[in-house]
């Protein structure tokens, strides 16, 4: 095989063997002669050789999963293109856009991409990530809208990752199927079922599922609201005493009941209700978490046993897979957790400390809403007594108690907890060993709890009204003192007036010679006047009361009263004149009568002289 420029390679290699630069130059001078181009090329190669370092020493770049992509390529190729679009035939699927694809990245350059970011709420609670470096985190996908930030929890079937939706700028909880299960169709099916159940349960008490998707490594995931806050379990445990905050906690419990009632109305039972599965947010959100054990009932509310039989394999598989969700330590069969508070592994699922006997006995197919009612009762029990129904030193004991429905200790604890009898009765009703003796479903329970809370409220309101009435009375009493003082002042004035009146009467009486009849007339008139005066005095008293209430107006009012008084005095004077006139008339009359009898003549003289011209001049004659 003749090479077009045979000299170049051998020249280069020969030159390379000469170490001294001078000798090398000499060699090149000799060999290349006038062929400067050749010499130049050899020199360039020598230089390149020096500079090349590790060039090409490493084999070709590694292949990554994108390498085989070709549009419309064969099945063999398609298999490695993960993502939802490949799950369907392209001709059938309406692909609007890849789930999880960042819309904003697509829009970049066409518009000024908005980046609104609300501040964090101070009360949001602690950072939920437990493991920033999780084996379950899929690889970074530069086109994805999701940023994955670490692992929050791990269950038997999936891991919950903390994520961020970079398009909407919000935090998310992303539940992803464990990598080890991605090739197990039945587990994938069950996982998607969980997403569908969660996605269809739309209630403020249930963290909403936003999206079901698939990571590039083909693992399905679903994104949910990231619920921040405390678990109800922590709230309950943090109490100094079970009687603390009881009303508030029963209020939270009512929310839980309403949420479960909603789920029951949609034919879904939760099967793992416990305080650890309830999140209480800083702003009053109460959310029932982990619907991973949830089961869909048939329309009649009876467990779908036929379906369960049909999917026997999947059922038992999932049952073995399901373990302590929310814990980093996957349990093993036989190890029932330290105190039976963790979700159980094995053919029995749930959490023994809160589990109804029928569930503990493994009758998973026959469970219905009343299993949840028991769980709710168990939560209520922990609210009231500080502990779940079954407590023992170890999980095995707890589990044994749960299978046998050993609730006598629990019931005596309830009896001694000091809560309202009604509430204790509700709890015991829910914890009935026989399902048929419990409230039918969470809705019935909700009604009872609501009624209980309403009665408590009524009681509170009644006592509040009483307290308010008492307070009003006390205030009134204070007012009365002021009024009494004012009245006393007014009465003192009235008494003074009466004295004046009495004086007038005395004056009149002292006039003397008045017949009993006249004096009676006068007396009655005087009495009327006195009444009038009293009425006026009453007015004055009222004025005085007002005066007492308005301290600053008191002086003015007092002045008014004085004025009144002087007016009264004037009126009294006028009245006196009137009386004098009447007396004049009466006595003139008497004089007339006296004139008729002889002995009376002297008397007439007396009367007429007593009514001298100056007295008559006051027009008394009418």
């Amino acid at each position, binding site marked *: 095989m003749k090479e077009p420029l045979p000299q170049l390679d051998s020249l280069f290699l020969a030159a390379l063997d000469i170490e001294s630069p001078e000798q090398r130059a000499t060699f090149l001078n000799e060999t290349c002669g006038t062929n400067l181009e050749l010499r130049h090329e050899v020199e360039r190669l020598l230089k390149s050789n020096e500079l090349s370092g590790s060039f090409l020493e490493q084999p*070709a770049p590694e292949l990554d999963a994108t390498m085989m992509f070709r549009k419309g390529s064969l099945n063999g190729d398609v*298999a490695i293109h993960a993502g939802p679009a490949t799950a369907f035939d392209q001709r059938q699927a309406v692909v609007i856009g890849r789930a999880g694809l960042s819309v904003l990245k697509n829009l970049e350059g066409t518009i000024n991409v908005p980046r609104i970011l609300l501040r964090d709420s101070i009360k949001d609670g602690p950072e939920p990530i437990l493991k920033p470096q999780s084996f379950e985190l899929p690889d970074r996908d530069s086109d994805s809208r999701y940023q994955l930030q670490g692992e929050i929890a791990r269950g038997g079937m999936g891991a919950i990752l903390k994520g961020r939706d970079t398009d909407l700028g919000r935090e998310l909880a992303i539940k992803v199927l464990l990598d080890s299960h991605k090739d197990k169709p039945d587990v994938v099916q069950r996982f998607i079922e969980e997403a569908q159940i969660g996605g269809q349960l739309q209630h403020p008490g249930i963290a909403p599922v936003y999206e079901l998707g698939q990571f590039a490594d083909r693992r399905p995931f679903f994104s949910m609201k990231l619920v921040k806050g405390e678990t109800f379990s922590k709230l309950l445990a943090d109490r100094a005493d079970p009687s603390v905050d009881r009303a508030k906690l029963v209020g939270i419990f009512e929310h839980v009941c309403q949420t479960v009632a909603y789920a029951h109305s949609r034919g879904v039972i939760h099967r793992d209700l416990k305080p650890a599965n309830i999140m209480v947010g800083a702003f009053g959100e109460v959310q029932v978490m982990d619907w991973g054990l949830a089961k869909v009932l048939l329309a009649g509310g009876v467990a779908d046993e036929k379906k369960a039989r049909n999917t026997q394999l999947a059922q038992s598989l999932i049952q073995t897979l399901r373990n302590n969700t929310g814990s980093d330590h996957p349990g093993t069969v036989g190890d029932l957790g330290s105190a039976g508070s963790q979700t159980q592994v094995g053919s029995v699922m749930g959490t023994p400390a809160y589990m109804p006997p029928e569930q503990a006995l493994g009758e998973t197919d026959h469970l219905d809403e009343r299993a949840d009612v028991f769980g709710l009762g168990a939560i209520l029990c922990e609210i009231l007594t500080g502990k779940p129904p079954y407590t023992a030193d170890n999980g095995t004991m707890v589990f044994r108690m749960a299978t046998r429905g050993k609730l006598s200790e629990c019931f005596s604890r309830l009896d001694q907890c000091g809560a309202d009898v009604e509430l204790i009765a509700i709890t015991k009703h829910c914890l009935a060993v026989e399902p048929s003796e419990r409230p039918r479903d969470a809705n019935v329970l909700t009604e009872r709890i609501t009624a209980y809370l309403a009665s408590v409220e009524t009681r509170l309101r009644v006592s509040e009204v009483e307290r308010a009435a008492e307070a009003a009375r006390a205030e009134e009493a204070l007012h009365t003192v002021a009024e009494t003082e004012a009245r006393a002042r007014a009465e003192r004035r009235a008494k003074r007036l009466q004295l004046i009146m009495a004086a007038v009467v005395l004056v009149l009486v002292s006039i003397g010679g008045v017949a009993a009849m006249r004096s009676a007339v006068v007396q009655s008139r005087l009495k009327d006047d006195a009444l009038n005066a009293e009425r006026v005095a009453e007015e004055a008293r009222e004025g005085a009361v007002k005066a007492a209430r308005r301290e600053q107006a008191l002086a003015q009012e007092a002045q008014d009263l004085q004025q009144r008084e002087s007016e009264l005095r004037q009126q009294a004077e006028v009245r006196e004149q009137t009386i004098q006139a009447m007396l004049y008339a009466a006595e003139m009359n008497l004089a007339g009568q006296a004139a008729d009898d002889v002995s009376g003549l002297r008397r007439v003289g007396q009367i007429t002289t007593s009514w001298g011209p100056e007295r008559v001049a006051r027009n008394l004659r009418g």
Partner: protein
Amino acid sequence: MGSMPDVTLILSAIENGDLAAAEALLPLVYQELRKLAAAKLSKEKPGQTLQPTMLVHEAYVRLVDVNQPQEWNGRGHFFAAAAEAMRRILVENARRKQSLKRGGDLHRVALETTGGGAKDRNDDLLSLDEALTQLEARWPEKARLVKLRYFVGLTVAEAAQAMKISVATAERYWTFSRAWLHSQLTQ
């Protein structure tokens, strides 16, 4: 594995100087490598990459009846074909990625596992391919060695064996080719 005897036969034919057989080998190896890569990548955890070397070796085991004692250089012929196939696969991949960078393909569902340097790496590979084509035009044997070293990951000694040349010759070829390609790329 229905294709296994075919490849063994073809390799034997190449050994006997059948040039048409060499042409038939390339597409077979190419297909096998693609299929193998696809299968492996779909099974592996994402982010796990495939070494072309491992891939080629695995394809060899799958395609060639290794239990049959081979006195002829079947392995060398196979690796030569595999090196070329691998080169095409990688180049094709790099081209596609470049077009995607220009926003070409809305149907893209693949995962991106590479970091920021991916673009450079793709560019590098395409330039290298160009230079390699020129090297091939002038010194086909040397280009073969480069392909075996770079795309199959053989050592100089292994490549020498596959090419039925001495290790010293292979070393010389390699030194020259590396310098030459480097000078082409840094021109």
